[in-house]
């Protein structure tokens, strides 16, 4: 081995850049070890103790940058010095640290050898190709993009499975990996509950409930909304279950999905038996009998899923407060006989689904843009009828525009529109906090809430608006402030997605049977 040193006079790099240069220098062919540091006395002392202090380094000042390369026998020292110089130039502030962007996933992977996950959000036409490149470079993938053909999704998931990688998505909006929320996610404490979810806001809601119950999340693996379809066959959910089963930090697993294809549901449930850990299953509208027969724990709602998971894995005595039925009575007493219907205006698909299913449970006449029954399915342009539940995050509403968690304009206009309908008793809304979401979802809605209430009052009606704020006490903006702002605007605030559905159902029952 031979030691070569370069001293760059009065050269300053921020510590993140220094570390990146050091990491890359250590990865160069022929380098046994490399050290990049400011020329302070103590750093020179360390080099001296390691027998690496040359006269040149000894002369370095505390404003000078020392680059020390310990090269393997036979390595081309000159070529190594050129390579190190290139690294320094690329990170040089004059060259623009920000200018170091990567044109390809392969280059990014090569430049960041410690990276093991790629988040891809490009046009769906190209998303599959980029995801494949990431997988080929040994990276797990979170594919945010939608509009990826289903055949391509199957091929990508199969490739990831064969390589032992996660292929989260396409159309995957939420994950929490090693305590880092990706795309839309909430600040939840680390813990021992692992989640595999084929639904974005469903996963967010379950993670938030787990946090609120005092427990935490080990990993939240998103699968993409189509994973449990007949075509895809639950490849990612099954791989996710296996990953969490093998994870020593996970004591209990929760599965969350919108209604899966029956054959896939069967396949996924068969996986439970071999997990070796308790598995709680919340498939919206799913069958308790099938889950129990498979050895799982059936959950009837997002709240039930979180509660059962926390009881099984963390705190057996944890409880939640029951629905405030007195408030239901109070609201019902304010309504005129003509006001019979609930209108749900949601950002979150699973939150919409959960409230809608609560109503279906009573056999009500329920219409939606995400209704399974095609006869009761509404388009984005259809007027509301009966009990209507709209998922503004669905493709009908987001075609060519951002998700309502970012751009609420369509939902605000609809709120005002619903207020004009004399048959509307209650408008139910969700407000999603957290990474990626609107910076003040309640604040941006308050003028429309005020306007809606005024329209109803001018017509001699009371319009009840029920709001649920999905978020934790660690989220930004502050959960308590958002809730307080809604209450100050006369909104009834519910404490979970499940309670929101319960409240809507209870009101519907009252006004229907009145």
């Amino acid at each position, binding site marked *: 081995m031979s030691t070569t040193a370069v001293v760059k006079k009065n050269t300053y790099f921020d510590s993140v850049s220094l570390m990146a240069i050091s990491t890359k220098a250590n990865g160069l062919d022929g380098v046994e070890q490399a*050290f990049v540091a*400011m020329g302070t006395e103590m750093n020179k*002392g*360390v080099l001296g103790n*390691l027998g690496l202090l040359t006269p040149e380094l000894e002369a370095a000042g505390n*404003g000078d940058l020392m680059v020390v390369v310990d090269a393997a026998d036979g390595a081309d020292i000159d070529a190594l010095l050129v390579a190190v110089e290139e690294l320094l130039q690329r990170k040089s502030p004059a060259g*623009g640290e920000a*200018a170091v962007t990567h044109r390809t996933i392969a280059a990014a992977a090569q430049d960041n050898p410690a990276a093991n996950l790629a988040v891809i959000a490009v046009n769906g036409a190209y998303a599959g190709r980029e995801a494949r490149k990431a997988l080929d470079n040994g990276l797990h993938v979170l594919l945010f993009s939608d509009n990826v053909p289903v055949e391509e999704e199957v091929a990508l998931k199969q490739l990831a499975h064969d390589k032992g990688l996660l292929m989260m998505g396409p159309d995957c909006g939420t994950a929490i990996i090693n305590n880092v929320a990706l795309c839309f996610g909430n600040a939840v404490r680390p813990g021992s509950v692992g989640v595999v979810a084929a639904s974005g806001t469903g996963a967010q809601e379950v993670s938030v409930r787990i946090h609120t119950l005092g427990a935490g999340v080990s990993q939240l693996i998103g699968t993409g909304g189509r994973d449990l379809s007949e075509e895809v066959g639950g490849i990612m959910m099954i791989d996710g279950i296996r990953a969490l089963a093998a994870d020593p930090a996970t004591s209990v697993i929760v599965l969350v999905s919108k209604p899966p294809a029956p054959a896939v549901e069967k396949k996924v449930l068969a996986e439970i038996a071999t997990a070796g850990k308790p598995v709680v299953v919340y498939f919206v509208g799913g069958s308790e009998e099938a889950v129990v027969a498979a050895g799982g724990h059936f959950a009837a709602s997002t709240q039930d899923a979180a509660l059962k998971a926390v009881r099984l894995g963390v705190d057996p005595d944890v409880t939640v407060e029951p629905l405030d039925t007195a408030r239901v009575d109070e609201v019902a007493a304010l309504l005129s006989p003509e006001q019979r219907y609930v209108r749900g205006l949601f950002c979150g698909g699973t939150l919409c689904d959960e409230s809608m299913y609560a109503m279906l449970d009573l056999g009500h006449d329920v219409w939606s843009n995400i209704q399974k029954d095609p006869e009761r399915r509404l388009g984005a342009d259809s007027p509301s009828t009966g009990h209507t539940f709209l998922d503004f995050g669905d493709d009908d509403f987001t075609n060519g525009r951002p998700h309502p968690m970012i751009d609420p304009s369509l939902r605000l206009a609809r709120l005002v529109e619903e207020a004009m309908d004399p048959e509307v008793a209650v408008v139910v809304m969700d407000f999603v906090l957290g990474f990626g979401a609107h910076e003040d979802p309640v604040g941006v809605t308050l003028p429309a809430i005020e306007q809606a209430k005024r329209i109803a009052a001018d017509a001699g009606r009371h319009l009840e608006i029920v709001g649920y704020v999905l978020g934790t006490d660690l989220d930004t903006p502050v959960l308590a402030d958002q809730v307080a702002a809604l209450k100050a605007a006369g909104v009834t605030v519910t404490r979970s997605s499940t309670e929101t559905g319960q409240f809507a159902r209870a009101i519907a029952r009252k006004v229907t049977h009145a």
Partner: protein
Amino acid sequence: MRTAVEVRTRSGDAVLLARLRALDGCGSVHSVFRGVVNLLLPDGELIALAARGRENAPRTLVVEIAHWGHSGVAAGRPVEFRAGGIALPDGAGGLWVDAREAEEWHPIVPSLAAFSPAELGTAARALDRLTRTYGQSGGMLGAAAAAAPMEIAVCAALDRGRAALVKAVRTSDTAGIRAAILALHGLGPGLTPAGDDFLTGIALLSALDGSGLDGYARTLRDVLATHSGRTTLLSTTTLHEALSGRVRAALVDVLNVLAAGRGQSERHLLDTVQNPVRRALAHGHTSGTDTLSGLATGLHLERELRGSL
């Protein structure tokens, strides 16, 4: 040739703003990073111009510029301070940083006097736990997995320095404190070496009302005066400011949230303080972690010293 482009200052350290209002003279550009440009005042002291979105900090102005990456400002060029602003050469008509309307920032830190020994212990444990959970290895938390021998050697030296400092402060051994500070001062590869960041965390605590770390503060002040060339200028400046209780906004937030959480259980405090701690940890590569490690060690020491009164 174009005229100077005017850049508004959003906010700034109130002490620096007051000084700029009366300042007339020439300095120079010390160093240029994407987020920050460091300048030397006419008397050789260091100040910073941070890009929009960066946090407030001592001797720092936060200006209306997205980043300095393509600003044309280069190290070594002269800078003119006049009329409450700063004229920067950028290779064209120059930039005029107008600081006259800037919002003043005051780093207001809490007192330690109201903390009981038990509360100091709870705060120290919560901070320690969060730092270990979310912090970055490579400095005071030890070497990363598969680290190069040089990183391992630096981390081992940091660990020895910390142990020596803790032992000396516990026994009020002034010579030991001095030796330990010297063992840490300037140790670590970064622009603010990890050893200095750790010393900064303890220095900050020592500046709070009710602190029992005055022996440490006196010795550190003396070391800075007598060993001025042991570390980078940025690090020396940061240490001096911390000794006056002046640190960047994220650290001020951590202290204030810890103070507001007095009396809470450790579990509750972990939740309360997690967000500000994570923001403070995000500074630099290991700088945030190393500074909070110093803060946690300082809190442990405060508790022990309080107990011995």
